[in-house]
């Protein structure tokens, strides 16, 4: 099922500019209960120095697609198809050995829980230095010196002493800093951060987000930040990709998506989170129901059982036909997967007055 074609992509010429270009990626897991379609036709581009935020609930396929980019589905029974082109090389075509050479060097990843992502038996310095020695033919001493430099760069005090500590001796924020040091030690072109701050406190989260932004500017890497927190996306991302049930449902520049969302799922995400200035007498508007099962996703638009605006689409189209990811009314950069014909008007008239009355008056 080809739901996306290169002609409707936000970036005009993907081959020349984009560092990473994912084309029609499918990741399916055969299980005893049937085929789990975790990612279904995902397409996006990412330029050097830019940040893409991928937003979605658990089970929407955001982590699975980033693991596909890292080549972490190799050796499992996952079925991958499509293209993941990094710097002109399709990562799905190359051998496991070639992928191993790229992993950590050209693309690296920061995981959500730094305590379980680090080996408890090796010192932090050892693990960071190992990441360096895998890709550089240097002595242990040089690699350790480099690890100390990186720990210093990510803001760990007394790096020459802390390099010999074990992960459990670090606090949560410091562990995440060490993970970032490990991810950036080979100066990768692409850094994937999978919920990098979900396990952290707000003040530490702010430190880590600032650090990631500083380092991105310094190393000019492309960053994919996966999160469920729209606030984090709002601060970090240039582009936003909203995922639901394995598909991109809305994709465009960050500010555009947050101020003029055109897909009811994005509206739901925005309205279900209280903010620090909102009216406390207003009830939160949750998205009804639960995320769908990927074993047996709903027909047509996967969001239709939870969508409050289904009646506005004529002829039961939401239930029968999968909408294409096409540009909405706000130009070719902003694509959405929804049948609603006048989404922007509905948002301004019905959704915005409820979630942000002050913004609605300004418009």
């Amino acid at each position: 099922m080809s739901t996306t074609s290169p002609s409707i992509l936000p970036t005009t010429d993907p081959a020349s500019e984009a560092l990473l270009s994912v084309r029609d990626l499918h990741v399916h897991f055969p299980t005893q209960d049937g085929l789990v379609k975790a990612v279904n036709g995902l397409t996006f581009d990412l330029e050097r120095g830019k940040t893409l935020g991928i937003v979605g609930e658990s089970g929407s396929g955001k982590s699975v697609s980033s693991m596909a980019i890292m080549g972490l589905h190799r050796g499992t029974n996952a079925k991958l198809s499509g293209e993941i082109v990094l710097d002109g090389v399709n990562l799905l075509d190359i051998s496991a050995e070639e992928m191993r050479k790229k992993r950590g060097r050209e693309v690296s990843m920061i995981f959500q829980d730094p305590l379980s992502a680090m080996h408890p038996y090796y010192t932090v310095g050892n693990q960071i230095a190992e990441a360096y020695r895998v890709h550089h033919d240097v002595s242990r001493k040089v690699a350790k010196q480099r690890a100390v430099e990186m720990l210093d760069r990510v803001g760990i005090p007394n790096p020459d002493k802390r390099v010999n500590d074990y992960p459990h001796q670090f606090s949560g924020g410091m562990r995440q800093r060490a993970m970032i040091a490990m991810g950036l030690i080979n100066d990768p072109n692409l850094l994937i951060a999978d919920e990098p701050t979900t396990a952290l406190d707000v003040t530490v989260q702010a430190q880590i987000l600032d650090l990631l932004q500083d380092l991105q500017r310094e190393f000019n890497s492309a960053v994919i930040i996966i999160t469920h927190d729209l606030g984090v996306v709002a601060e970090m991302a240039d582009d936003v990709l909203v995922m639901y049930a394995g598909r991109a449902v809305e994709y465009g520049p960050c500010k555009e998506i947050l101020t003029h969302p055109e897909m009811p799922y994005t509206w739901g995400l925005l309205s279900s989170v209280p903010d620090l200035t909102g009216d406390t007498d207003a009830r939160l508007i949750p998205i009804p129901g639960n995320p769908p099962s990927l074993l047996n996703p709903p027909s047509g638009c996967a969001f239709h059982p939870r969508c409050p605006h289904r009646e506005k689409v004529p002829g039961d189209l939401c239930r029968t036909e999968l909408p294409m990811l096409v540009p909405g009314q706000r130009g070719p950069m902003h694509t959405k997967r929804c049948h609603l014909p006048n989404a922007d008007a509905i948002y301004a008239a019905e959704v915005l007055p409820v979630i942000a009355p002050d913004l609605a008056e300004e418009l």
Partner: protein
Amino acid sequence: MTNDTTNQDLAPEDAVAPRAGHGASVAPSGAKPILEVDQLRMYFPVKSPGLFRRTVGQVQAVDGVSFQVAEATSLGLVGESGCGKSTTGRLITRLYKPTAGAIRFEGQDIAQAKASELKPLRREIQMIFQDPYTSLNPRQTVGSIVGAPLAIHKTLPKDKILPRVQELLEIVGLNPEHYNRYPHEFSGGQRQRIGIARALTLQPKLLVADEPVSALDVSIQAQVINLLQDIQNEFGVAFLFIAHDLAIVRHFCPEIAVMYLGKIVEIGDRDSIYKNAHHPYTQALLSAVPDVKQAATGARIERIRLQGDVPSPIDPPSGCRFRTRCPIAQEICARHEPPLLQIGRRHKVACHFPGRLGQAPREPLTAGLLGVDAVGRPDPGASPSPDLVEQPGYADTWFDLDNKSIGRA
């Protein structure tokens, strides 16, 4: 509904403030406290390794916390991990025995109560846990999980338990026919509803909710928050709402206490904390929250960068515990612990230099009260003010910082 009427019997009608359709956001006015916590302390011993396991130190998890929770309202406890907010919740449900201090529930001190004295108390104070995956027994059906409190307390004959369980499942928005299913058959949000149903079974007057939504997906969080508000409106339950998400706490609780390293640094009603914060830690916490609307419209307030991590509660800093990360700390902060000073009708702050962001006073306001000079050395001419002992509630007079006078209610 039967429990509606029983609950009204329990609650004296004059004490409950008139509630709008949306109870949680109404500030308590004149409602009498159902829970009063006074100078509560919990020190966990740190044992040395080896045969003799001597006590070599103490984790001062909660160190002198005082607050009140009024009937049918919510007090939010916020703070970073390790600040003692969960320990406070567990002390109030008496899952731990406090080292010192008093927990007065409806006037009765339960801090040192024995197990036999606690059993009737468990009907009144219940808890909702953070992780709906580990707080339900996977080998029991939903019916036996929710019905267990009724069987234990023998409040209903056995044949009446099932109808009551089904009624409870319906209240929390689950299908009552599902009483014979197991927890793994439910999604995360549904499991949290089961946990809420279990907590409601005995019609408690106080619910301690320890991060009730942080393990749930964003779209499900709002469902659970709305459910908790409906429960509060319908049954008049008071909540101690423990969370680290400042936006959710603001939405749910008319009164908020901010904790740092086992102490309350600022406590007050919603507007005092979120619009008029006087403690540098509260200000930093608020500025660190990523906000969709501010970022989308470009009106981002400058973020206060706190350096470093929270110090260890085994060996907390001297004086003010926040001083190691505080942008405005001075000499006096290392010498003296700031008292929790009432600076508004319902607003207390523990800082030597309380002020709005960027307007902190140059001279410590507390020096005169503590009987010291501006850098914290004992001042022979001044004597410490005798009435600095922290009260759980609010006094009728306070220090009005704007007018430099004493405010009166």
